[in-house]
């Protein structure tokens, strides 16, 4: 699974993108984030407040209960500020 991070979540996580292999019990975005936070340090800080986490799976906006699978690209980022 490819995970990409943007803006201050990228900075806090300390990585822009990475390939990960979460355990089989990670079924959805919420589970994925919990698992990432368990990795400690920057991840715990980046995702401390779930209310500001926005998610896209395969470049489409989804909610935290959206399933994730091995071949997905999951993007985690704060609310957008373009325009």
């Amino acid at each position: 699974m490819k995970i990409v991070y943007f803006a201050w979540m990228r900075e806090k996580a300390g990585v822009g993108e990475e390939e990960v292999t979460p355990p089989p019990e990670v079924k959805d975005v919420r589970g994925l984030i919990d698992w990432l936070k368990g990795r400690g340090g920057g991840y715990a800080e980046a995702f401390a407040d779930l209310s500001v986490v926005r998610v896209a799976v395969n470049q489409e906006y989804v909610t935290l209960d959206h399933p994730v699978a091995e071949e997905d690209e999951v993007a985690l980022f704060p609310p957008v500020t373009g325009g």
Partner: protein
Amino acid sequence: MIRVQREKFDLGAEVARMTEGNHGIGGVCAFVGLVRDVAGDQPVAAMTLEHYPAMTEKALAAIEAEARGRWPLEDSLIIHRYGRLEPGDAIVLVAVASAHRQAAFEACQFLIDWLKTKAPFWKREDTGDETRWVEARASDDHATRRWRRGKAAE
């Protein structure tokens, strides 16, 4: 049409291209967003726009398609820049052409409101002393919500 680019754009040339040869167009509404030299009460020396390349064009194209489904448009154009910008630089152009002006105004506002809350861009301001990520504004969420289907326009 959607363009995501680092380079400046030329408003006059872009609008001329839209209207050239399409004599069904009665009006073009264009909005250009610019970098200001203040944010709140802090000076802004420069700004950097990060985006999510794999998603950006897809997201903008979806927003554009939504506008073209809602209003009878002759043409539409979104150009969004990324990278480092300075005060006075244009960040974004939304231009909408229609037979009638009301549709052009509404669709243009719809597009910029949606861009603000849906397009995967993030602004980092450089005040000279420090850099900080711009926070999303509740007023932008509000502006987008008024376009929800089934809700009154205001």
